[in-house]
């Protein structure tokens, strides 16, 4: 019986204040936006969870809060028992955040050089960390080409490869099929399912769109 959830979220809220230079001068404040209010969620080891919702419903905010990229206004997040606010490094070591933002790679560098840079940031030896990941994602033949020359699907696979370099227990995916054609999107989904089965780790994905197909892939879908 497992007693510690992989991710435990308690009373999580995030407020974005409406900041404007004019408001500082006039002392008149406009109300901001509550992206999340009192979210309570547990993700148990081995579980895959998909969060579905329309634009602006706070999906990306939630993932960024779990990834410790944002600070919550209220509430707490525990990653395998570690308080993400008190011990962010301990939490980050267990998380793989797949941003699905191609701009976060360096277009002039090759795939290998990009992955090697991110591996070094994780204090990993590129020669040891990269081959198993690129082998799993079938990226060997793309490693020596410049990043900007890849198709969107290959860029997405490199994004996933980056998130897997440090062998995280929990993978966070932020709309991994955005801008992909239906075939590439299906491929990424299949890959996600394969990784989940192989690693028996956790998957938390936020997604925009119909949840019918997602229910086949994920054990829990949260709307």
């Amino acid at each position, binding site marked *: 019986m497992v007693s510690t959830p992989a991710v435990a979220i308690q009373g999580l809220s995030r407020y974005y204040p409406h900041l404007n230079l004019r408001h500082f001068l006039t002392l008149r404040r406009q109300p901001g936006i509550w992206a999340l209010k009192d979210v309570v969620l547990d993700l148990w080891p081995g579980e895959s969870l998909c969060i579905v919702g329309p634009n602006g419903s706070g999906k990306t905010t939630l993932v960024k809060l779990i990834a410790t990229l944002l600070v919550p206004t209220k509430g707490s997040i525990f990653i395998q028992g570690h308080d993400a606010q008190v011990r962010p490094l301990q939490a980050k070591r267990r998380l793989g955040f797949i*941003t699905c*933002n191609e*701009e*976060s790679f*360096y277009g*002039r*560098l090759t795939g290998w*050089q990009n992955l090697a*840079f991110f591996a*070094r*940031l994780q*204090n990993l030896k590129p020669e040891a960390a990269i081959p198993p990941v690129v082998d799993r994602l079938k990226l060997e033949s793309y490693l020596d080409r*410049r990043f900007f020359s890849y198709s969107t699907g290959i860029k997405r696979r490199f994004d996933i490869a980056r998130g897997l370099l440090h062998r995280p227990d929990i993978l966070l995916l932020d709309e991994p099929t955005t801008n992909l054609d239906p075939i590439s999107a299906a491929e990424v989904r299949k890959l996600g399912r394969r990784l989940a089965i192989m690693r028996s780790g956790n998957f938390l994905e936020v997604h925009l769109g119909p949840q019918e197909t997602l229910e086949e892939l994920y054990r829990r879908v949260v709307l």
Partner: protein
Amino acid sequence: MALLLRKLSAFLWRDFLEEISYPLDFIWQVGSILFRLFTFYFLARLVEGAALPQLAAYGGHYFPFVMLGLAVASFQGVALTAISRNILYGMYSGTL
């Protein structure tokens, strides 16, 4: 400390790789620096005879004076703009 240095070296190596990723552009940049040195070398030869008291600290030579001035000015320019530019780039690229 060793971890910090390793991460710092990763950033420096990445920047170096980006710089040399287009060799012609890299050569052009190095060439522009050399061209500037070349220009100031001849300018220094032109004013070499003028005994300016301000140049006493540089052995009376204009060339080391202008080199030092250019290096400090370049460093100041980079120091003032690099942090804000990199933060902006990090926010745009999603790495921050």
